[in-house]
């Protein structure tokens, strides 16, 4: 077990770290050379390399710098502090969860409509697909401006952008899932003279559950992206998106990278949580262990 899963993972991680540290040297070397020219000092090669891993505003921060920043802005800060990544993470997470909730509900409802109504199948599906071809970065500012003009601001606009991204995988997955019962299973219910709602609750819905979870995993990650994108155009001061933006304004590369990692960790956590929920649910639904 250990050799089969942990070792390869650690190997890959080690390779990435090594490449990362190696990449820092050419990326940050110019600054070190510039500083040396100014002061007229000299450095050995190993000192020079060490310096590229310890700059205050490197082009590419070294892994340990990002890790230190992450540690410093999570564990070492009060979570109410404006400098705490947990504080900013929660701002983004709350918008993500609200958007994910809205997107999932909308996605499931649309899928139910599409499966039961030919008119909706013909009319809604193309629009759902078109909606995803528009770059979110282009439409996000407009959503925020339009909502602001009718007095809606704060978390809800971000959540709506997040829902805009997350409803689509849910629609696609649920339509497939609700249509997954084969002709024989539908015939069986016909022999019981089952009505449409019975077919839905007893057959279509339970059959769609594995598809739903696959969609939810994509949907929740998309939700997080949506919430972060929703923080960018407003010049928001709170949230992971705001940290990214502020970091880029002031050339705080370490802050940008740590916010990126915080977002990635958050996304991984959310996907893992849904994975756990999936395992528990499917096990209860008699899935073969």
């Amino acid at each position: 077990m250990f050799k089969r899963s942990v070792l390869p993972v650690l190997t890959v991680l080690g390779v990435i770290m090594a490449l990362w540290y190696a990449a820092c040297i050419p990326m940050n070397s110019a600054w070190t050379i510039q500083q040396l020219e100014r002061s007229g000092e000299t450095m050995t090669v190993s000192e020079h390399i060490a310096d590229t891993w310890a700059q205050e505003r490197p082009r590419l921060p070294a892994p340990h710098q990002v890790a230190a920043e992450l540690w410093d802005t999570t564990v070492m800060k009060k979570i109410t502090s404006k400098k705490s990544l947990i504080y900013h993470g929660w701002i983004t997470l709350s918008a993500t969860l609200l958007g994910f909730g809205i997107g999932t509900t909308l996605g499931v409802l649309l899928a139910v409509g599409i499966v039961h109504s030919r008119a909706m199948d013909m009319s809604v599906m193309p629009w759902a697909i078109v909606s995803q071809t528009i770059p979110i970065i282009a439409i996000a500012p407009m959503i925020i401006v339009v909502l602001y003009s009718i007095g809606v601001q704060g978390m809800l606009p971000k959540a709506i952008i997040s829902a805009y991204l997350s409803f689509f995988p849910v629609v696609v997955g649920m339509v497939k899932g609700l249509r997954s019962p084969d002709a024989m299973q539908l015939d069986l219910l016909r022999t019981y003279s089952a009505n449409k709602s019975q077919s839905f609750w007893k057959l279509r819905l339970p059959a769609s559950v594995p598809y739903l979870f696959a969609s939810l995993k994509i949907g929740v990650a998309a939700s997080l992206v949506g919430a972060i994108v929703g923080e960018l155009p407003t010049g928001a001061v709170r949230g992971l998106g705001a940290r990214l933006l502020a970091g880029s304004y002031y050339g705080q590369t370490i802050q940008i990278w740590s916010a990126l990692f915080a977002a990635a960790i958050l996304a991984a956590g959310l996907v893992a949580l849904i994975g756990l929920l999936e395992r528990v649910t499917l096990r209860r639904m008699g899935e073969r262990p």
Partner: protein
Amino acid sequence: MVSNLIISAQNLDLTFQTNDGPVHALKDVSLEIGKGEFVSFIGPSGCGKTTFLRCIAGLEQPTGGQISVNGMTPDEARKARAYGYVFQAAGLYPWRTIGGNIKLPLEVMGFSKAEQAERVARVMDLVDLSGFQKKFPWQLSGGMQQRASIARALAFDADILLMDEPFGALDEIVRDHLNEQLLALWARTEKTIGFVTHSIPEAVYLSTKIVVMSPRPGRITDVIDSPLPRERPLDIRDSKEFIEIAHRVRDGLRAGHQDDV
């Protein structure tokens, strides 16, 4: 004239409109089935045996002729819970336990909780699956799954059991065993059974009446009333009568095929 007529088809026609033109699934099919009979439909693929069974069940609408089940149209008969249908695959819901699967028709039909439990226990006993109520389908063998699907069809006490190649996907030994059990079940419950099969020995062993069909267009070429007694041990298959009937069925199948070969 059959006594206690349960199913009656007169000059039944069914034409499917396909992209390759019309397909005559059934042509001029007339048949009468009496109460308590075990009727097998045998013939090559495309002879309409399954289609005919589906017409009885109201799952297909004939394009011509008359068919009545218990004196009603198939649709009315279905609503009156006249039949239970067993498909080729067990088709158990993987997310329900065996007990839960057998309960499915009872839930749909609105039986009370207490009656559901009582009926599930009774039919599970009938197919020798007592003790497997809480198991999930994947924990059972193919033969046991098919028995569970028969129990599901029996749960709401329909008088007619329609079975579409129920044992077609099982191996010979399991199939023999299930055939024996099915005959015992039939004797105990006195149901009328319509049974589609590919297998001549299976048809002869089980049936009181064998309907031989042939394809293009699907039609009945022979109806054989079996002289075998209702009590049938497995070794009856070595008897002279059994072999004679099997011969006649084979001849019927060959005659129906003549235009093809």
